[in-house]
């Protein structure tokens, strides 16, 4: 096929991992076993099952992974339900990468990082976190505050416990909404936990999660003394083209697929809150 923007290539799902009751992580390579294309953390790709649908997903594996791409996908609509039901060996179509991604090589470089995620919101951040791990010397301290409804809903729990927690200068703070048998960690919502941990304001913060969590966490950060210019987030919207032409994913004059999905909070403040 071609490498034109709206025309995908074939990909094969080579591994499916259940992360939570409603999130699975899919590993995708081309039929000859290669990565479909290179990307930067925070960028997205269009995945499709012909006849079912095509949708934009955050690439959750790190660019430093040279062998495959991964997508952590929550079951919530037509296409995602279909993907959740499929087996290894299933072919999909894939095109991308789309979007600006996180400024890991510019604004983030040399900074202490604070990642805050809720639920499936960890998925897009996993790519950045693992990128930071792979270029450990380029970044300072890393704090991760991550919460979910329950222990079972924590995405990448194994990777967090076995790898991230052991990384040098990585502090991982996990929380779940309600107490649960077998959980001896923190219980409570993310925004409150962020304030409780009292993270120093010399961090560059990245927020990802449900809109309501973003709203209250941003408030918590501002109360801690963070500036909006220090806080980034990544947005979600219905998309069809991925290249700023089909006309639906704009917030004000910014197209989420092209100018986003990563925005700094002070930039978002200048745009209508229609997202």
């Amino acid at each position: 096929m071609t490498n034109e923007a709206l025309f995908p290539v074939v990909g094969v799902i080579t591994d499916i991992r259940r992360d939570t009751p409603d999130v699975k992580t899919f590993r995708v390579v081309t039929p000859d076993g290669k990565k479909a294309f290179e990307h930067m953390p925070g960028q997205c790709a269009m995945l499709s099952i012909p006849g079912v649908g095509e949708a934009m997903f955050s690439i959750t594996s790190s660019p430093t992974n040279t062998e495959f791409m991964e997508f952590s996908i929550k079951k919530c609509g037509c296409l995602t339900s279909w993907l959740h039901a499929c087996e290894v060996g299933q072919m999909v179509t894939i095109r991308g990468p789309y979007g600006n991604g996180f400024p890991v090589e510019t604004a983030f470089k040399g900074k202490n990082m604070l990642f805050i995620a809720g639920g499936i919101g960890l998925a897009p951040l996993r790519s950045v976190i693992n990128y930071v791990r792979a270029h450990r010397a380029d970044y300072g301290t890393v704090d991760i505050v991550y919460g979910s409804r329950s222990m079972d809903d924590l995405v990448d729990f194994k990777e967090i416990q076995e790898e991230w927690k052991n990384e040098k200068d990585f502090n991982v703070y996990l929380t779940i909404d309600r107490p649960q048998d077998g959980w001896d960690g923190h219980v409570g919502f993310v925004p409150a936990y962020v304030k409780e941990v009292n993270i120093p304001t010399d961090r560059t913060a990245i927020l990802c999660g449900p809109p309501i969590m973003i709203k209250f966490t941003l408030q918590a950060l501002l109360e801690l003394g963070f500036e909006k210019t220090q806080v980034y987030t990544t947005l979600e919207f219905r998309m069809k083209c991925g290249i700023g032409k089909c006309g639906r994913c704009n917030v004000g004059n910014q197209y989420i697929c092209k100018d986003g999905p990563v925005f700094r909070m002070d930039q978002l403040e200048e745009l209508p809150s229609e997202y």
Partner: protein
Amino acid sequence: MKKISCENLSKLYSEIASLQELYLPVKESGVTNYKKYENGAEVDIKTLKTVKSAKDFFFPQTEDMMEFKVNGKNIEINDARKVANPFVIFGVRACDLKSFDILDKVFLQEPVDTMYKAKREASTIITLACNNPEQTCFCKTFGIDASNPAGDISAIIVNGEMLFEAKTEKGAELLNKLTCLEDAGDTDADAERAEIVKKSENLPFANLNLDEFKGENLMKLFDRPEWAELSKACLGCGTCTFVCPTCQCFDIRDFITNEGVRRFRCWDSCMYSEFTKMAAENPRKTQLQRYRQRFMHKLVYFPQNNDGVYGCVGCGRCVQKCPQNLNIIKVIKKLGGKNND
């Protein structure tokens, strides 16, 4: 310059059609739209506003992109794009011509939309000046001169004769092939053009004030309470967007055929309730939001991203076609600034 008597235009159409596919405004079942020229077609060059605009040539309402062969877990992708054969569009008015510039800014911007580009390059555009601009025309508000559109060849009717002038090499090449045309000699169109300019100037919406529509007013305009009143009667149909020469939102959909799955692109409308709907959320839930999006896009967002060029050419199709008489003139008058009454 070349010319032909208007009485002999069918000769011209036949001759062009013998060289390339020719599309021009044809009246059929009571309405005028661009159609492929065939002998006996009721060509209608009096009607200024075809129902569907000329954007259809480059961005058709629906076009096939690819076909998928699905076999168990396997997928094979095959190109289903049609090759764009050279074609001529005759009778494009200044407003529609300008709409191509606007569409170019979207589709030819990197990454280039090759489906659009191929058709754009395959076309030869013969424009036609508007001898009698209508009351609903307001192209002048957007700096468009109805008397002198360019294209590859520009045509104008003067005293029962149609005059032609090549504007590009492609245009000159076609013009030179046309044996039914005679040399225009010293006939010129200057007086007729001046007359058209005067008529355009006197139209009721020729000089709408657009001052308020600028990027720095984005939030202020977005929050204007008048959107509620302006959008109240909106039915949420797609008429305005489908007759609009600059509306270019599209959808990409799959169609399950006997042989496999065909993926096609088709027009979509920001007025439709499911336009931005996701599995769990919809950022534009109300018709007010969708209505506002359409006009903010044309009058604020688009110029903000494209050096001040507005996303409206003042053709007035929406003015004629909105079922409930909502239109961009009412929006501009309400929000555009002083002296709009």
